[in-house]
């Protein structure tokens, strides 16, 4: 018995303790979301009732449906596009030798250390002009925000993917080139399918990052119809903190759905990709 405690028991103890820490806020959100009163002060850890009032209120009383749609569109388009752009650059850095390659790799890393949101004032001023001249990509448009997010597409992800490209044997592309494949065919038909796991992981990380992005979206989207989930939900509890808490929690649960779905969809790649990324650095 002592031996069991020494070798296995402590593992369960750690697991259960952390599990309690992990689950308390989540259980709280679930019970608050189904709480018929829908206020913070009446929310308990253990559900005090079951009602869908918060969910129906969310769709009828706020722009939640619209925010949800905006967020999904912005997060999917920008994460897929950013992964694709990053993969293109990673291929060039991994497979091609050209003047300025080292400088390019290092500057990608350096520029990313200046987080985009530190330049928020400049972005605000630049997009004030853009809104005047090209309203289609100005403030309160999804396309403008997506473009802005894509500015950060070359970055840490490029490094991660370059590392993965480096592990693929060069003989693969060499023999394809011998057979008359163009560089585009080598990239799209041979290498891209092989790096699918790392693409999945970076896309997932980008998706989670974008759907949670608050600061830039908060400055960029002010019209009620253009808001994303973080901006909209924040507005819900910014003023009426106590009264809207139930609706807010209902919104939180619904927001988790796309993330969990993407997670499930890409699951078979994730352990592989994260491990590969970790081991490669």
């Amino acid at each position, binding site marked *: 018995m002592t031996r069991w405690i020494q070798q*296995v028991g402590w*593992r*369960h103890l750690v697991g259960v303790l952390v599990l309690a820490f992990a*689950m*308390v*806020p*989540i259980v*709280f*959100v679930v019970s608050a979301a189904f709480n018929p009163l829908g206020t*913070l*002060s009446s929310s*308990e*850890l253990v559900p005090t009732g079951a009602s869908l009032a918060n969910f129906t209120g969310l769709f009828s009383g706020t722009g939640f449906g619209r925010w949800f749609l905006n967020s999904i569109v912005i997060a999917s388009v920008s994460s897929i596009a950013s992964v694709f*752009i990053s993969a293109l*650059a990673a*291929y*060039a850095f991994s*497979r*091609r*030798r*050209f*003047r*300025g*390659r080292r400088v390019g790799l290092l500057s990608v890393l350096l*520029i990313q*250390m*200046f987080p*985009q*949101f*530190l*330049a928020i*004032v*400049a*972005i605000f*001023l630049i997009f004030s002009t853009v809104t005047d001249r*090209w309203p289609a990509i100005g403030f309160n448009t999804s396309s403008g925000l997506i*473009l802005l997010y*894509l*500015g*950060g*597409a070359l970055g840490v992800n490029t490094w991660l993917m370059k590392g993965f490209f*480096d592990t693929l044997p*060069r003989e693969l592309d060499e023999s394809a*080139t011998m057979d*008359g494949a*163009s560089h585009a065919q080598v990239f799209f*038909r041979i290498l891209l399918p092989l790096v699918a796991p790392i693409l999945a992981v970076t896309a997932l990380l980008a998706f989670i990052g974008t759907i*949670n992005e*608050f600061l830039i979206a908060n*400055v960029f989207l002010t019209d009620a119809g253009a808001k994303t989930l973080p901006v909209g*939900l924040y507005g819900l509890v910014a003023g009426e*903190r106590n009264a809207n808490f139930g609706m*807010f929690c209902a919104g*939180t649960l619904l*927001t988790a759905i796309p993330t*969990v779905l993407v997670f499930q969809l890409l699951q078979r790649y994730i352990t592989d990709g994260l*491990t590969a990324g*970790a*081991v490669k*650095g």
Partner: protein
Amino acid sequence: MSIMLDGPATTQARPAPEDDRPGRTSGSLIKIVLLGLTVAIAVWAAFPLAENRAWTGLAVLTATTAGLLYLYLTPRHIPLKYLAPGTILLILFQVFPVLYTASTAFTNFGDGHRGSKDEAVVAIQAASVTQVPGSQQYALTVATTGDPATGPLVFLITDPATRQVSAGDADGLKAVPGGDVTVGSTGRVTSASGYTVLTAGQAGLRSAEITALAVPTPGGAIRSSGLSRAYEGRAGRTYDGGCDCIRDTTTGRTWTADESAGAFVDAGGERLAQGWKVTIGFGNFTRVLTDPAIAGPFLRTLVWNFGFAIASTGGTFVLGLLLAMALHSPRVQGRTAYRVLLVLPYAMPSFAMLLVWRDMFNTDFGLINNLFGSDVDWFGGSASARLAVILVQLWLGYPYMFLVATGALQAIPRELAEASRIDGASAWGGFRRITLPLLMVALTPLLISSFAFNFNNFNAIYLTTEGAPFPADNPANGATDLLITYTYRIAFGGGGAQYGYAAAISIFIFLIVAVVSAISFRRTRHLEEVHS
């Protein structure tokens, strides 16, 4: 940019042999469509530039488009073909804003220092307008060109004699053609094409802005008097080109232009609130370091910022690793169930969970005080507020560390640990000497990027404590403020925007993160990949 190819011969660029295999033709078709699209976008973007006579912008646009066409039609410059899309986006939306920020840091740009000197003079004169006997009266309708709640305000003004309607904003007055407006019996405009007329309720909500709006006219300015009447008053302060100063027409007091500060200053050193934008050199940077009212709080924030980033990164790493080690044994039953539940915090939207945590720490009806039956004002004291935000980060961040540590542990061959056990090492000794060093090789780069992320973790503070608690004498800088939230408050907070100063702090943050990352990258072998 010229590209030199010195890679293996087989991957070098060579003109693609002409053939008619299906892959080739569909590839060219896609290429032609994409290039056509590029040209179409360029043409669409060119019109507003030409209209605004932005010739430099137009030249850059034309050159970029021509360059792209050349790049994708020539068989040469293969690496650049792959780098161009990301690089263009990077330059437009990352490099350009960063450079803009850097240049702003050397100016006094901010509230009161936005435009040119001429604009400042117009604004000062318009703001000093008062109603004098005989002022021309107008019927006023408040309208906007955008959203009724946030759009720019416009005064629609009806001349009582001619019933001619004009539209005025801070730039001046312009006539509105009679056919575009409907004027009611009282002389007020009921609708106008291109404008949204505000209802009394909507206008009431924005009364402060309406009172502040002055439409400059040659003799003074038009201001509102209530929500339905306006008058054209005379300027109480006028600019005198001879002495380069502003003179008050009733008191005779003068404010002389100070070009180095971008403001009008009187003999006693008192400034007018409205100034203009000038370059002030390193003023913003030295202010951070030498102004005692700023330097002290800034240093405190910097130290806490490091503490927060290290505690968040280190805490999540230790917890994630401990958990990964605990579950890294086939003898633990229900490992899959553990794993699925333990990564749940990672799947929850972090911005929302930060707000939930904020409310869980609520003094009066927060879950934590309820559970423990305590009555702690968590965000009221520095120590408890700091502990609270780190605890929240621990919750949000450990699942990621758990995932990568699990992955890295699985990559380490079991034989290594067994061999050390046979050689007589204790379990702890084996972990410390063999497993941990191997793990660190794999995980150090992730720890560095996690540190860099947490150093600027805006959401973690802004969505929980918002920087609280604030000392009584300094409402701009709280105990849990990170440099980034502090910067945000300076730039966008209620106390008047100071963009130049905020930009200077942004540059400090960039330098700190860059130096820390450079040192730690140098210590790992990460960068050596570049040399290969």
